[in-house]
């Protein structure tokens, strides 16, 4: 009797639970999941499907014709070879150099570490082709070297691309190694020393193995950046073509979308593979540092410190030379013939005047706003809602990392340059460019936000609920106040990338929506090196000012540990 009553009770209770679940909170969750997922479908997957479809589209229906046309040519194999040659060499050099640089700033007693760190990161504030720009000013036909020594040397071609690419990706690799080398367990080093190992042996048996994941991560990140970069090869490549420049030439030069998309798809494969491998490898590297790890104590060592002081100084000189010459050239009367001081290139009496810079700032601000909203919401939903959709949603959020910017941009043309698509209403506007930038960098923004969300204990949410706080009140009073420093960092990240990126937006801009980074490319292409330099300097100035304002804001409110440079 007692048993049957309680069984009935529990049945009743199950039914009751279910009705209780389908109340406001459940609907809110469904709504939020949709709010995160739908834009990702619309602005990432949908364009990708379109570009895939277009690559199979031929005069008489669907077919492999485009692929046969492209893949059957000798030129394609040359491009493939060129791309891989440049990318692999650049990756090797960068990983090696950046590791050494990070080692110097984290594991030696080189004086002025912070200054060196900052210099290594400066290239992130400049348009992504500034390295090629600077390299030409130094070693191009009209470069300083030829003018000074009367030589006829030319940097155009393979080595030009490799050098400018190394300088371009150096800060990304440095950041990864720096974070990895900063986390060290001193006990391992002490036991290695007690066992009588010398510095080299300690490095090989302790340091290198503990940073092997960083080495892999940096390798894949650098590989992806270089193989998809087209700004630097465009400017300094000369006759040396790579896959990325070919996409541009096919689409912009010859309006041949089909062939452009085929090469885009070819580019997508290695990038997607690299990102996938990196994510899989990264999954298993938790707990590298045990709970009882003690912080690293670095003893002075004259030979080591001296060597690395010279090493970092040389690298910093290279970085500064390339950037410095651009700044210098922007202030000369007419580079390289009249080097007297002049501000005339800042008058921007070129085609669109100063408008592209304003366009960039508007776009950056919009991207910051949209980006921080989209990734913040995505992080909240995946970290807090505990729905069935957490894993697929997480995956969807980081998919963009595997899509080259040019491919995404091309996908936007194919998907949205079509009056029957509602997004057509904003086609050709700065808003769509901002959206494109947001979804191009969505994965990184999302990871920053969700890492920080993980660190904010969910017991705050629970404490608030028990105290009678509604969901909205919890977010407004607790989650947002605790998250704002990180969210500001995410906004700055989107602004910064939006200001300097080239590849995602190149296909989307019209004369009236030209952005500053594209101006640099077009002016450089026309030989207007002074104005191009002036535009680059303006971009850097804007980015640095925004970073400074954000830094001051964060420091004022006691959030020194939030890093803004990513």
């Amino acid at each position, binding site marked *: 009797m007692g048993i049957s009553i*309680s069984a009935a009770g529990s049945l009743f209770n199950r039914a*009751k639970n279910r009705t209780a679940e389908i109340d406001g909170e459940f609907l809110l969750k469904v709504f939020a999941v949709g709010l995160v997922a739908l834009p990702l479908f619309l602005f990432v997957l949908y364009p990708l499907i379109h570009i895939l479809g277009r690559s199979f589209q031929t005069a008489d229906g669907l077919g492999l014709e485009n692929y046969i046309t492209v893949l059957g040519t000798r030129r394609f194999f040359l491009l493939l070879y060129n791309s891989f040659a440049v990318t692999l060499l650049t990756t090797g050099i960068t990983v090696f150099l950046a590791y050494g640089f990070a080692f110097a700033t984290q594991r030696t007693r080189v004086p002025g570490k912070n200054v060196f760190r900052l210099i290594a990161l400066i290239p992130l504030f400049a348009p992504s082709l500034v390295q090629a720009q600077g390299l030409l000013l130094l070693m191009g036909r009209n470069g300083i070297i030829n003018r000074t020594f009367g030589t006829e040397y030319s940097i155009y071609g393979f080595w030009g691309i490799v050098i400018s690419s190394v300088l371009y990706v150096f800060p990304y690799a440095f950041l990864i190694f720096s974070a990895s080398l900063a986390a060290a367990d001193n006990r391992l080093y002490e036991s290695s020393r007690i066992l009588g190992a010398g510095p080299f042996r300690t490095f090989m048996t302790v340091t290198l193995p503990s940073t092997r994941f960083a080495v892999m991560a940096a390798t894949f990140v650098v590989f992806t950046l270089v193989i998809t970069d087209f700004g630097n090869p465009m400017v300094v490549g000369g006759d040396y073509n790579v896959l990325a420049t070919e996409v541009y030439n096919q689409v912009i030069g010859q309006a041949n979308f089909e062939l452009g998309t085929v090469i885009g798809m070819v580019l997508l494969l290695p990038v997607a593979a690299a990102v996938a491998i990196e994510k899989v490898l990264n999954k298993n590297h938790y707990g590298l540092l045990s709970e009882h790890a003690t912080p690293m104590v670095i003893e002075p060592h004259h030979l080591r410190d001296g060597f690395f002081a010279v090493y970092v100084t040389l690298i910093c000189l290279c970085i500064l030379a390339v950037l410095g010459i651009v700044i210098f050239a922007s202030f000369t009367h007419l580079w390289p013939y009249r080097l007297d001081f002049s501000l005339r290139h800042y008058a921007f009496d070129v085609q669109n005047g100063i408008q592209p810079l304003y366009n960039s700032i508007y776009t950056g601000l919009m991207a910051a706003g949209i980006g921080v909203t989209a990734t913040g919401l995505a992080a909240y939903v995946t970290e807090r809602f505990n729905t069935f959709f957490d894993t697929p949603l997480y995956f969807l959020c980081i998919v963009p990392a595997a899509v080259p910017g040019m491919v995404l941009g091309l996908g936007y043309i194919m998907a949205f340059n079509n009056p029957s698509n509602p997004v057509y209403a904003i086609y050709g506007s700065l808003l769509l460019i901002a959206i494109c930038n947001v979804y191009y960098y969505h994965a990184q923004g999302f990871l920053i936000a969700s890492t920080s969300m993980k660190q904010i*204990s969910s*017991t705050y949410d*629970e404490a608030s*609920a*028990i105290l009678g706080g509604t969901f909205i009140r919890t977010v407004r009073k607790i989650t947002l106040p*605790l998250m704002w420093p990180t969210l500001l960092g995410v906004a700055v990240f989107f602004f910064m990338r939006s200001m300097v990126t080239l590849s995602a937006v190149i296909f989307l801009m019209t004369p009236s929506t030209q952005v500053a980074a594209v101006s640099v490319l077009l002016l450089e292409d026309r030989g207007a090196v002074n104005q191009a330099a002036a535009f680059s300097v303006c971009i850097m100035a804007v980015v640095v000012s925004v970073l400074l304002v954000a830094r001051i804001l964060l420091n004022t409110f006691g959030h020194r540990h939030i890093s803004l440079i990513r």
Partner: protein
Amino acid sequence: MSLEIRNTSKFFGRLKALDNVSLQVESGSLVCFLGPSGCGKTTLLRVISGLLQPDEGVLFLDGRNLLSVPARKRNFGMVFQSYSLFPNMTIAANVAYGLESRKWQKSDIAERVKEILFLVHLEDQALKYPHQLSGGQQQRVALARALAPKPSMLLLDEPLSALDAKVREELRDEIKTLQNQLRITTIMVTHDQEEALTLSDKLVVMCDGKIIQEGSPMDVYQNPANSFVARFIGRMNVLPASTGIPYSRNGHTKGAVPNLLGIRPEHVYLTTNADSESVFKGTVMLIRRLGNLTRVILRLDHIQNGKGPIRITAEMPGQADGLMIGHTRYVSMPPPFVRILEWE
């Protein structure tokens, strides 16, 4: 407010974290959940609070079904193990949070915050931030925050475990005083048996998601339901009945044969001569002098279990002067104190 939990179960995947739990919590009483790590204490508390929905079972508060009431409307107060004070708010704002959520008048809020901070002796810390307080102070704030909205029930999840011994004892007494003063129905999770024994009106011993025994602390201490409870609360000696130690049946069924017997160390007496029947010869293996108390571990030379001679713990007041390792003593275990823990 009295709470009734009926046939409640909770699964985490395949793990049965709560297994058909039924419990009655009397109005105004303090109930302690005690048990080893991972036995489901927190899970049960979270089910009561509404932070977790049970998979089976019903909860009633004063006869009203609780399950359809979301956590924020249950009007319970809760203190978490990690304090969980909102780091972006002052102490006063933390305490006021629940009152604002309940839309109290501004002036009432100010008054209540003052009153409750006075109650936990933190009236002069109102404008500080949580990280500026000591662990004990933070836990007091957490208590104040939970009590401020006059909850119908107070839930405490190991509120003292992050504190050092001295502060813990102070705060333990303070909680008891507060609870007595306010007569608020309170459930407290702990895995410190001393805490549970001194604080609770009712002790609930849990293991593997099940309630093993419930009762007054005295009752559970004196009559442990099985060897698990006996070992977990106090350090009862557990002996096989096959040793032939005389025991008291204290009212149990006559015919059945006991399997395991238990006796508290303070009821194990040592003498130098074998003058009575129920004595066993033993050798002193270890002596711990704990100030006002001495704990002795002896080997009973003639009583074996499967693994060899049995060891037994005895406790006596004072210093036990003259007792040394290796001495022979006779152990007497008066039958009234020998309990039956398990039947064949």
